[in-house]
C-alpha cells in the first residue's frame, strides 16, 4: 500500500483531472448497469407479462425499451471514448513526471552510485519500470475504484430484489480472499526475481552492444551469446513460473464462481417455480450476477498486478530514495573567482572505508603551475582528482582551493572552475560545435573556432563534410581517438576554467595529437591556468614545472623532472621498469606474430 501511496504523490499535480476522470468513470459504470435492469420490464411487462396487457401496449413498451437501450449505449460509447483518451493522456503525463523525476534524481547522485549500479539496470528502471507504474496508477487503480462501485452498487440492487439469493452470491468471498493471499505472496517474490533478471538481461545486452568492437576483435561472440542466452533463459524461466501461478489462480477462481452460479440458478429457478420470484427478477439477477462477479475477478487480477507493481515500485523508489553522498553544506558559499592555488592537507581517502587509497597526502600547487602526477596503476592518482572535483569527500583531512575548503563551497560553483580531459573521451550525439560548446552552450561561433584552433582540432574539423556542423555519431563515432581527444580539449578550453586536469589524456593518442596537447598545456600555463597532468608518459612529464610520484597512496617523491630523474629514486626505478615492460611486450608481440 505504501508503494501506491507514494505513487499517488506523482498524481498530485493532476488531481482535478483525476477527479473529472473518476466522475466520468462513475457515470459510465452506472450507465452500464441500466441495460441489465431493463431486462425486468422486458420480461415481466413485454415478453411474459404477469398481468393481462394489450398487444399494442406491449409493442409500445418494447419500442420504448429498445430506444432506451440504444440511447444508453450511445451515451456510454461516447463517454467511454472520451474517458479512454483522457486516461491515456493522464497516464502519459504521470509517466513523464515519473521519468523526469527519476532522471533528475539520478543526476544528483554521486559517482559511487554509478559505479555500484549497472547501466542496463538503470535503463530498465528509468524507462521500463516507470512505464509499468504509469500504467498501473492510471488504469488499474481507477479500475479498482470502479470495480468497488460496481460491487456495492450491484450488491445493493440485488439485495433489494432477493436477499437470500444475494447472500448465496457472497458465499465464495472468504475462499477468494484466502486464495488471493496465498497466490499474492508467491507472486510478489516471483515478480521481484523477474525484474531483477530482466535488469540483468538489459545489462548483458547493453555490454554486448557497447563493447561490440572488443567482442568482435576477441572473437568472443559465442561467449557473449552464451551469457545472453543464460540471462534470457533466466527471464524465460521466471516468466514461465509466473504464468503457472497466474494460470493456477485464475481457473481456480473461475471454477469457484461457476459453482456459485449453478447454485444461484438452482435456487432462483426453484423460487420462480414456487412463484416467490418473478421471471424478470430472476433474469435481472442472473444478468447482474456476472456483473457482480466481474469486479471480484477483476479486483483479484488487479491484486495480482499490484504485486507486480509493488516489485517495480520498489525498484524505482530505490533510485529515488538513494541520497546523494556528496551534498552541498547548508552554509556552503559560491566559490568566487580564483587564482588556482590548491592545497591537500593531510588527506586520507578510502572508497570502501576499509582500504586506504590515499594516505596522509600533503600537497600545495601554486596558481599557474603545471604539476605532473606519476605512479604505478592503482597508486591513487585518479582518486586525487576525484577528490579535487569533489566526486568524493576525503575520509580525513581537507582540500582547499584558494583557501576555500571544498566542503564549504557549492559543488556547482567549484566545478565551474575545473576542466577535465579524460583518457576515454566522452562525446555526445550532436554537431561538433555543440560538443565543443557543451559547457558553454551560449558560446559564439568565433569562440568555438578559437577553442578548436587552440586544441589543434580546427584543421581536421574543416576537412569534415559539414565542418563545425558535422553530426557526430554516438560516442563520437567516425572520429579517431586523437580527433576525439582534441575536441574534448577544445571543450575544456572554451569553458576556460582556472584549473585544468589531464587524466591519462595522451595514453591512447598518436604522436601528433600528443604534441598538440603539450602545446595546449604550454599555452594554458602562459595564460595562468593551474594544470595537473596524470600520465605514464615521459614526454608529458618533461613539460611540467614539478612532479609528484605516488605509490601505495602516498607521495614518495616530489621535485622537478630533472632532479627526480637524476636522484635515481622511485621515479627513476619506475621509468626503468616501464621501459623493460615495453621491451618485453615488444618481444612477446614478435613471438605471437
Amino acid at each position: 500500500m505504501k508503494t501506491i501511496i507514494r505513487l499517488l504523490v506523482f498524481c498530485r499535480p493532476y488531481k482535478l483531472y483525476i477527479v473529472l476522470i473518476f466522475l466520468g468513470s462513475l457515470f459510465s459504470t452506472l450507465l452500464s448497469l441500466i441495460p441489465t435492469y431493463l431486462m425486468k420490464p422486458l420480461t415481466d411487462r413485454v415478453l411474459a407479462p404477469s398481468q393481462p396487457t394489450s398487444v399494442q401496449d406491449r409493442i409500445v413498451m418494447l419500442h420504448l425499451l429498445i430506444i432506451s437501450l440504444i440511447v444508453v449505449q450511445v451515451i456510454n460509447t461516447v463517454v467511454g471514448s472520451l474517458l479512454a483518451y483522457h486516461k491515456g493522456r493522464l497516464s502519459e503525463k504521470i509517466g513523464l513526471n515519473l521519468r523526469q523525476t527519476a532522471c533528475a534524481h539520478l543526476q544528483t547522485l554521486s559517482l559511487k552510485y554509478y559505479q555500484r549500479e549497472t547501466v542496463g539496470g538503470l535503463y530498465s528502471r528509468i524507462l521500463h519500470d516507470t512505464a509499468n507504474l504509469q500504467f498501473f496508477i492510471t488504469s488499474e487503480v481507477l479500475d479498482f475504484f470502479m470495480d468497488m462501485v460496481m460491487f456495492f452498487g450491484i450488491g445493493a440492487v440485488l439485495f433489494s430484489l432477493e436477499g437470500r439469493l444475494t447472500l448465496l452470491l457472497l458465499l465464495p468471498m472468504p475462499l477468494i480472499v484466502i486464495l488471493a493471499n496465498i497466490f499474492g505472496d508467491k507472486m510478489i517474490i516471483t515478480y521481484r526475481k523477474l525484474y531483477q533478471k530482466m535488469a540483468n538481461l538489459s545489462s548483458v545486452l547493453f555490454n554486448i552492444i557497447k563493447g561490440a568492437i572488443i567482442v568482435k576483435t576477441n572473437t568472443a561472440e559465442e561467449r557473449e551469446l552464451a551469457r545472453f542466452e543464460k540471462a534470457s533463459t533466466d527471464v524465460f524461466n521466471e516468466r514461465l513460473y509466473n504464468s503457472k501461478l497466474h494460470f493456477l489462480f485464475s481457473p481456480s477462481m473461475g471454477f469457484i464462481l461457476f459453482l456459485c452460479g449453478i447454485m444461484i440458478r438452482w435456487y432462483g429457478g426453484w423460487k420462480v417455480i414456487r412463484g416467490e420470484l418473478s421471471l424478470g427478477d430472476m433474469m435481472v439477477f442472473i444478468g447482474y450476477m456476472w456483473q457482480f462477479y466481474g469486479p471480484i475477478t477483476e479486483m483479484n487480477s488487479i491484486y495480482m498486478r499490484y504485486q507486480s507493481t509493488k516489485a517495480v515500485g520498489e525498484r524505482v523508489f530505490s533510485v529515488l530514495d538513494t541520497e546523494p553522498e556528496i551534498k552541498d553544506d547548508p552554509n556552503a558559499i559560491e566559490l568566487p573567482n580564483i587564482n588556482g592555488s590548491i592545497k591537500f592537507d593531510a588527506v586520507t581517502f578510502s572508497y570502501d572505508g576499509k582500504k586506504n587509497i590515499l594516505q596522509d597526502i600533503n600537497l600545495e600547487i601554486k596558481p599557474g603551475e603545471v604539476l605532473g602526477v606519476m605512479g604505478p596503476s592503482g597508486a591513487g592518482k585518479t582518486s586525487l582528482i576525484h577528490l579535487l572535483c569533489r566526486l568524493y569527500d576525503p575520509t580525513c583531512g581537507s582540500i582547499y582551493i584558494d583557501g576555500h575548503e571544498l566542503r564549504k563551497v557549492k559543488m556547482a560553483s567549484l566545478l565551474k572552475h575545473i576542466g577535465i580531459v579524460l583518457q576515454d573521451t566522452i562525446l555526445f550525439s550532436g554537431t561538433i560545435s555543440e560538443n565543443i560548446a557543451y559547457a558553454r552552450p551560449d558560446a559564439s561561433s568565433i569562440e568555438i573556432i578559437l577553442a578548436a584552433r587552440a586544441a589543434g582540432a580546427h584543421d581536421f574539423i574543416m576537412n569534415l563534410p559539414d565542418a563545425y556542423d558535422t553530426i557526430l555519431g554516438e560516442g563520437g563515432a567516425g572520429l579517431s581517438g586523437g580527433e576525439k581527444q582534441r575536441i574534448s580539449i577544445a571543450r575544456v578550453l572554451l569553458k576556460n576554467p582556472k584549473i585544468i586536469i589531464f587524466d591519462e589524456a595522451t595514453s591512447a593518442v598518436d604522436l601528433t595529437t600528443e604534441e598538440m596537447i603539450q602545446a595546449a598545456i604550454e599555452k594554458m600555463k602562459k595564460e595562468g591556468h593551474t594544470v595537473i597532468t596524470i600520465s605514464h608518459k615521459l614526454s608529458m612529464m618533461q613539460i611540467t614545472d614539478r612532479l609528484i610520484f605516488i605509490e601505495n597512496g602516498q607521495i614518495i617523491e616530489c621535485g622537478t623532472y630533472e632532479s627526480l630523474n637524476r636522484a635515481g629514486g622511485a621515479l627513476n626505478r619506475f621509468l626503468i621498469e616501464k621501459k623493460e615492460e615495453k621491451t618485453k611486450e615488444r618481444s612477446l608481440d614478435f613471438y605471437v606474430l
Partner: protein
Amino acid sequence: MFFDSVGEGKFLDIDKISLYRDVSGVLKLKIEGTTEDYPVKPVRYFPLTGDEHYLGLFIIEPDGKIKKETAFITDFKRLDENSIKLIEEELAKSYSLMEIKKIISVKQIARIGFRWYVKTDNGERTFDVANQQDIYMISPTIVIAKDTEGNKYKIDPIKLDSNSRSILEIYV
C-alpha cells in the same frame, strides 16, 4: 569585430585583402604589400547553421582536400564589391542546398532504402536515402536529408505542412 587573420599566424587588416579570378578562372587572394597571390576557396565554418558571413579562405590540394587556411574572415561583406561577388559565386557552387517545402510520400524500397517524393524550392524531386541515419536534425529548424548520391536537402520542420511533418517525424 574580433579579428581577420591571414596565414602564417599573422593578423591582417581586412581592408588589405581582395579577391580576383586569374586568366584560367582560379579564384586568387591578393594581400596588399605582398608579391605572391594565393589560389583559394571560400569555405564556411558552419555551412548549415551558423552565420553565413563567417568564412575561411583555404588553399586547396589537387584532390580537393583543404590544405591550409589562409584567411579567417568574420564578415566577408566588408570586402570590396568584386570580392564579395566572387565569394558569393563560389559559395553558391559549394553550398546551394535545395530546400524541401513539402514531403509528398516516402516509400521503402528493397535493397535501396527509402524513396522520397518531395516538392522543393526547385520543383518536384525524387531521391533515394540509404538509411535512417542519413536524415538528421541539426537544430529544431534544420533537418538534413542526404541522398545516395551525396546530395543534401535542407528541411525546416516548422515550415512544413502537418502531413509532411508527420512523415518526417518517422525518420528523425
